[in-house]
């Protein structure tokens, strides 16, 4: 591929937020016709770099930056995203910037519509020219074809699947005539695997057409699959530029984390302590939009780690949410021999069940409250702990000292990276937020813990620490765990058995050492057909 003068060059970029240096002399160059991957843990400085490139006001408001951004030979410093766009930078965001009620074509051409002059516009100016819908459509069609999306350009965006929206965003950037550099910020985070593959293909074909692409992602295999250059950031510094042809995922992960990547220990079939099962679930149905559970039955033995796997939308996420009473549920659940009332979160917590939600930002944390309050709050509310003694129950005040001490303990035990227990949780990285969620669940002293997507959106290093932690909760504290995850590899690392959910039912319960083929068939709902149910 091409390797002429770079489209974009960053020279020795340094940026501080209130004395905290988040970028330390970062340099990189994006050549036309290539894909340049930027990887790093959360907090490594990736988003700061993107904000800076895209002229987000936050950079200027906090004192600007040092170093040069050189775009096609010109040193630039953008004051706003509009300026960045006008200079030929296209950005594909993680969150979609599309108007749901408008059609695909209207979204693509918004504010750049080809127009036809008329009488009024000749008098009153270009703003009154009529939109050329035909050309809108044909331009959009061309852009959509370039990204390989076959959807009708006159459909409204509202009802389209998430993956389609991502491609429409890209089509819109591609359609801009002046765009030479495309920035993809974690574009595959919301996509299914096949959509992600499609996206990577599109990126490659765009690069082949001469675009320079800056690709920010968590998924290291993607970086290896498409990138021509790789820059690894750690704590705001460039720590390596491995050659994608000569490196491995493990090597990049090591660079990112700064230490060799661990593989969570694997062991054979364990002997469980016995006794009544932690959970006996019979015919559980959960009405969770997008993750409906039709009828699920399983048993979580005392001291066991059971995994729930399955494709997105098949209902694996709904199971734990239903058990905790967050979505309407029907069925019978017996916990350690006693019936568990459904649709009552407080009763579930009192029955010593705790839940770490898959929706960390939405359900898991109070972003604008302190770490200490986040950890203690559920225990205060549901169990009346961390309160001073008082003659009357409603008069009991929060015991700030106990809350603080407990937070210190948890911060130490879980290695939560923060400035102290008073720090707001919003300011923590994803992995540390997840640890706060786990700390809160542990504070409830449950005997059974439901954990959903424990490592979603957190980086490689933190991932392993979280998995290690789950493992030690099970081994050392004897908690029974129900772990729901989209990442089969992590379930196989920590679970005793793995149940596969397909169309709202349990398709199969497989041992951790079942073959990839068995897992694959079960997720596709074809294991029964092959006559091989196990477990």
């Amino acid at each position: 591929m091409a390797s002429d003068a770079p489209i974009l060059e960053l020279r020795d970029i340094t940026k501080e937020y209130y004395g905290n240096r988040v970028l330390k002399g970062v340099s990189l160059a994006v050549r036309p016709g290539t894909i340049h991957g930027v990887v790093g843990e959360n907090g490594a400085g990736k988003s700061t770099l993107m904000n800076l490139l895209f002229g987000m006001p936050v950079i200027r408001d906090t004192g600007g930056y040092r170093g040069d951004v050189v775009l096609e030979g010109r040193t630039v410093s953008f004051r706003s995203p509009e300026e960045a766009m006008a200079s030929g930078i296209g950005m594909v965001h993680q969150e979609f910037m599309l108007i749901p009620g408008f059609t695909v074509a209207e979204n693509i051409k918004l504010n750049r519509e080809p127009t036809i002059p008329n009488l009024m516009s000749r008098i009153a100016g270009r703003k009154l020219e009529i939109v050329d819908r035909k050309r809108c459509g044909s331009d959009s069609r061309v852009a959509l074809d370039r990204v390989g999306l076959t959807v009708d350009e006159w459909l409204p965006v509202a009802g389209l699947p998430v993956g389609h929206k991502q491609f429409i965003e890209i089509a819109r950037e591609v359609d801009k005539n002046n765009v030479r550099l495309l920035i993809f910020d974690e574009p595959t985070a919301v996509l299914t695997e096949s959509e992600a593959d499609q996206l990577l293909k599109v990126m490659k074909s765009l690069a082949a057409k001469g675009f320079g692409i800056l690709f920010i992602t968590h998924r290291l295999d993607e970086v290896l699959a498409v990138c021509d250059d790789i820059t690894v950031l750690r704590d705001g510094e460039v720590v390596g530029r491995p050659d994608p042809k000569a490196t491995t995922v493990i090597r990049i992960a090591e660079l990112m984390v700064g230490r060799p990547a661990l593989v969570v220990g694997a062991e054979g079939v364990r002997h469980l302590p016995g006794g009544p099962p932690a959970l006996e679930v019979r015919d559980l149905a959960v009405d969770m939009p997008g993750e409906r559970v039709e009828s699920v039955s399983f048993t979580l033995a005392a001291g066991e780690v059971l995994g729930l796997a399955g494709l997105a939308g098949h209902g694996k996420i709904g199971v734990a949410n239903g058990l905790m009473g967050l979505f309407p549920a029907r069925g019978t659940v017996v916990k350690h021999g006693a019936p568990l009332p459904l649709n009552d979160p407080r009763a579930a917590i009192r029955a010593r069940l705790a839940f770490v939600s898959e929706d960390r930002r939405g359900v898991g944390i109070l972003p604008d409250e302190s770490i200490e309050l986040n950890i203690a709050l559920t225990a205060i509310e549901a169990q009346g702990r961390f309160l001073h003694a008082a003659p009357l129950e409603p008069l009991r005040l929060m015991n700030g000292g106990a809350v603080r001490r407990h937070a210190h303990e948890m911060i130490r035990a879980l290695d939560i990276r923060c400035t102290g227990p008073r720090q707001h949780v919003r300011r923590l990285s994803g992995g540390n937020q997840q640890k706060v969620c786990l700390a809160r669940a542990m504070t409830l002293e449950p005997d059974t813990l439901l954990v959903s997507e424990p490592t979603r959106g957190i980086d490689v290093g933190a991932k392993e620490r979280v998995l290690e932690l789950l493992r030690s909760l099970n081994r050392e504290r004897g908690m029974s765990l129900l772990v729901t995850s989209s990442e089969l590899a992590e379930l196989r690392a920590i679970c005793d058995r793995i149940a596969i959910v397909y169309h709202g039912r349990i398709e199969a319960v497989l041992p951790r050492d079942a073959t990839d083929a068995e897992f694959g068939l079960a997720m596709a709902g074809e294991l029964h057909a092959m006559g091989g149910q196990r477990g």
Partner: protein
Amino acid sequence: MADVVAPADRTPPLVMLQESIREIGIPRLLIAVFLVALFGIAVATKMDIASLVGDSLLRAARNGILVLALLPAIQGGVGLNFGLPIGVICGLVGCVITLNAAVTGWTGLGLSVALAIALAIPAGLAYGWLLNRTRGQEMMVGTYLGFAVVSGMSIFWIAAPFTNPTLVWAIAGRGLRTTLTVSGVYDKLLDRLWSFNVLGVSIPTGTLLIFALACAVVGLFFRTRAGITIAAARSNPRFARAAGISDERTRVQATMFSTVLAAVGIVVFAQSYGFLQLYTAPLLMAFPAVACLLIGGASVTRATLTHVVIGTLLFQSILTVALPVTSQVVQGDISETARLIIQNGMILYALTRRSDR
């Protein structure tokens, strides 16, 4: 381009100044400067500073609980409680019943407060229920409901069977007068309690203490389980649900608390002011209280006791000092104009900053 910014190893003094200004907030700074200027003029024109300070203090103490009443609503996620007149009317009904029965002194004051609370609890409950059905538009709904209730109560004031001749219109013999005096009932009872003079400034100790007590009750409440629950539900309703908290319930509790405080607040206000103002008077009660809180540095989603105290002192001092000072400098009264500009300007300013943080 490289030298756009000074090295940030050492924060330049100008940046530090900018940051501290941002911390305090430009409007608050302007208002404080304005107040200092007013006092400066007062000194220059040899006015009675002691009485100005004393009056400022008195007015702040008098209005304090009404401003404080806004705090639980913000903590509960209901926003600025423009429905404050609902609580105020409960308090007024409590006072009028006491006056009608001619119960005087401390018993009278206690009875008024007790009645005010008893009426405000169901009223707050109903108001909270309504706000849950109009989520996201609390401020507008509160304003409209306040207006509607005030108008509805105007009929009540006319039609209710109060008989005490000191309260009803002398000629018709029925229907309450627009302004009732509490003199001889509990006029200045709290103001005079343990009152003393410092450098010629008379301190309304009792009223100040009641305000402090109310602040303490609110502060402590938000450290109890119920209070923490309310704040958590405001911060993230979905988190709250997962912890077994119903955010609808906490919002109603917060609204109820706010309404009760408003009811108590107006009784304390009337005791100090000396009059009960009926009919349309409660209509605009919420606006100065809201302005006080916002001048104190609160936003639509975040407020603390410090905001309440500082805001009340600042705003009430300006109202007190502006009238005599401006009448010295210019002929005529611009203090009412200044009040409206500051009050409504402050509310607008706070609404524009809604998405901050």
